């Protein structure tokens, strides 16, 4: 279904597979007068949506409503989770900061929610040194509630950044005069597939995380042993000469990230010729030729010095005429 405001855009969309050269014929007289954009809310993608126009935009754009409801649902789920953990302060703070962040479009709201989440998990009473046992200490490798809590947090974060991109800014482009151009994503470019992608990618990320943690937490490093790497899942009794668990986790996780980054870099280098355009390759060859040329000139100058011995300051490469 095409949104009414999309039909009034000054561009025309060709059906799939239409050859490029037939566009002029299809779209009619090129010099015809162009319609002005009708929607006063979503016309200019370079300005943020004003607070007064936010309600109208939410009414007009069903996809935007969907994301808004998803984010609010995730926020409420987070609050319920903390209420279940008997951290009323956390639930209240999360609701207040999350809602204010959505209304006022704070980019920092996501950071604050993440910080609150971490803080109240480590200190359920809200202050360090509380006596209440942590709910999560009872869960070793996750349960449905814990997975749901993580999913709600991920959903909130994703929806929050989507909301900021739709109403405030999604890209910042520097300009030659020192200013920056801020771009906002118009709401009519939202697609239903993005909402499904949220769930698919979140579940996938959660699965990968679970697998990673199993690896990180299950490895035991025993320096000096014949087999320095061991596997204990769950690690009930560590050998006396094994590394501390936090150090083992740090080493394994750092090694994993390093391998992933290096592998990505290697693949990127191998795919270089597929990612470059012809002009990039021509420029690279041009630059490489300059470096080789400079080396040759230095060699020539050194050779000249042995036989002719000119003044050092006058040794210059044979420049072409300007």
């Amino acid at each position: 279904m095409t949104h009414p405001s999309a039909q009034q855009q000054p561009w025309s969309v060709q059906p799939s597979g239409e050859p490029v050269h037939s566009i002029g014929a299809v779209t009619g007289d090129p010099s015809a007068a162009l319609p002005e954009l009708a929607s006063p809310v979503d016309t200019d993608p370079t300005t943020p949506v004003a607070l007064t126009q936010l309600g109208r935009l939410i009414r007009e754009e069903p996809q935007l409503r969907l994301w808004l409801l998803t984010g609010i649902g995730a926020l409420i789920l987070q609050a319920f989770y903390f209420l279940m953990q008997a951290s009323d302060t956390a639930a209240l703070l999360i609701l207040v900061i999350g809602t204010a962040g959505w209304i006022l479009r704070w980019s920092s709201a996501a950071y604050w929610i993440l910080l609150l989440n971490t803080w109240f998990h480590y200190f359920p009473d809200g202050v360090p040194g509380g006596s209440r046992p942590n709910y999560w200490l009872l869960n070793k490798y996750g349960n449905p509630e814990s997975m749901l809590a993580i999913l709600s947090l991920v959903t909130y974060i994703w929806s929050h950044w989507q909301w900021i991109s739709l109403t405030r800014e999604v890209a910042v482009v520097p300009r030659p005069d020192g200013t920056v151009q801020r771009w906002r994503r118009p709401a009519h470019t939202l697609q239903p597939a993005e909402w499904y992608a949220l769930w698919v990618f979140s579940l996938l990320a959660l699965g990968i995380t679970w697998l990673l943690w199993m690896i990180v937490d299950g490895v035991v490093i025993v320096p000096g042993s014949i087999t320095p790497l061991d596997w204990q899942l769950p690690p009930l009794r560590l050998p006396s000469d094994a590394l501390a668990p936090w150090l083992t986790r740090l080493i394994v996780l750092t090694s994993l990230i390093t391998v992933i980054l290096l592998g990505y870099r290697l693949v990127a280098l191998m795919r270089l010729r597929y990612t470059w355009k012809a002009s990039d390759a021509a420029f690279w060859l041009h630059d490489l030729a300059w470096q080789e040329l400079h080396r040759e000139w230095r060699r020539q100058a050194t050779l000249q010095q042995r036989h002719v011995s000119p003044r050092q300051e006058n040794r210059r490469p044979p420049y072409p005429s300007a």
Partner: protein
Amino acid sequence: MVTSRGYLWLVSLAGLVLLGVLLGREVSLLPTWSGMTLLVLWGGRCLYFAVRAEGLRRRIQVHCRLFQAGREAPVLWAQIPFTVELTVFNPCRYPVLLVLEDWFAPGTEVVAGTYRCVLRVKAGQNVTWRYQRRAAVTGCVRRECLQVIVLDSLGMFQQRWRVGEPQQWWVLPPLCDEEGRQRAVKQFNQVPPPGSHRWRRPGTGSELLDLRDYQPGDPPKMVAWKVSARREQLITRELESDVPVRCLLFVDGAADVRLGSPGQRPVQRLAQAAGLLAQTAIAQRDPVGLVCFDAQGAEVLPPARTRQHLLRVLRRLAEVAAYPAVPRGLGATALTRRVWPWAHFLYPHLVQGSLNNMPSARLWRPLLDRSWGWFIPAVMLANLVMVFTVPPWRLWAAEQAAAFSRWCLPQGGISQLILFAFSMITFLIGPLLVAGLVWLWYGTQDLFGSMRRSLTQRKQLAALVAFNERAGPARIEHLLADNTAYTHALGCFLQQHLIPTPVHWYDWPQRQLYREPAKIEVLASALLRAVSRARDNELYVILADLADYTPHLLPLVTACRLAHARHHQVLVILPEPQGSSHPPSPFSSGTAQVSELPSLATSSPSPPESASDEQKLARRYYATVYQQLRRQLVAVGASVLCLEATNPLPVLLERLDRLRGYRSRR
């Protein structure tokens, strides 16, 4: 590729994961798992975005066409809106979210539609996008590129490319209307046909000029028989000449008339006025010629009256008015600072570090290239020779080291022995160490800090300029070594991309850098050459900025005097400096306000009330030099007018009609 939002988010997640890994399951697992999940999600989106963006970059296709008056236009006309049609084709198998911005060089304004938008282009889909622009003054329109920004929907990643090669269209001066074509009314019933004008010199026309005594050789048909009978001696009739008014336009293209913001440069107003004069003259079937001059020389288009010739004249005027002045008085560093943001914006992929970087080896400053540089290795060598071949040197070093260690640590022990060893080495090869440190300090001066940045930027700009010039790798080395060539190349870069030189019209000290007195001599010699080849009844219209050249006007005054002595007309038109408003930002591509059609007034300019003090002073100075100039040229029979930006242009046309012998309608 990663935006500032993405980096900040990544750092936050990495901190959270690090904290969770250190604390582990002993405290709580959920923050760790949340952070890791978000980190994995971030990494996955990064990979997903990189693969899609790189795939799109090589395949995306953009076509641009310009239409004016309903058809595709190879050249444009000023003040008539033209339609820009852009077609973006996504040949990939996935949809993409794109920010598109059609980037034109300064000098045009958007009159309908929008030149930038955010689109979601589906797989295999064409998107055609049209909007209208207008070039208000003559010159050229340069379309730099279509800036494409591929977006991540969460704003964590973005990639910016320039798609398409720069295109350029000449903008011809505006077509004159019916008033310009039929400017004059007939003063007499018997007038020559179009293209011929009465000239009060003896000739073969139809109007009687005078009667004189018969001289042998006069044709009998010219004898006035009735008058001869009345006076009883032969009297011969003399008729007026019917000649065309050949109009020769001299248009100034020197550097000082190219200063200013787009649409407000004097050369553009002069070219526009010249185009109007040429159209009016050819509409009246008068031949029109064109002489474009600057300090280097003059180019001549001989007078003709055909339609093709008119188009040639207009095209040449557009070429003259197209480019701004090359900046002067700026050093290599200042020019680099000015060009770098434009290069980074217009050619983002060609100045990025992965493709265009300065090798670190080139940043090592070679000491031995200096004539005094050999002193340092000589010291080192001498020190080594002394160590190995002069025993007293070793003895002296040992004595000094022992004395120093005893003085420092009189209690003795292993520490004294270690100190002795270090002191011994220091005294023994001290000069070598000092010389080595000096060599290291000299060599690494360019490796760090601002020097490294400036040298790298210079190399990147040199490589970009050389690549655009198709000049080969030797050109890069040339630009790196030769400051003059480098500054000239950067100035040409700015000129080629129509980036105006930021010199205000009232900044007279700065404008002095752009003065070219040689153009007066070029103009005078061109005028003399035209006079020497002229026929009867020529009209010379000089459109030039002569206000700053009153001490150098002697050759021009002489040429004007000669033209006047040969009964030709000379009209000098000066451009008035632009009004009191500050020129708009050179970056305002989409919404640049361009000036109105230039017009003429015979009065000297007066300062506006809202102008600042320096503008008032500049206007007063200009009024003074204008009066001096006017006095000098009027004395030799030339007419002087001043182009203004506010008053109507018909003043000039009326003046030309009077020079032609017509009486104007107005």
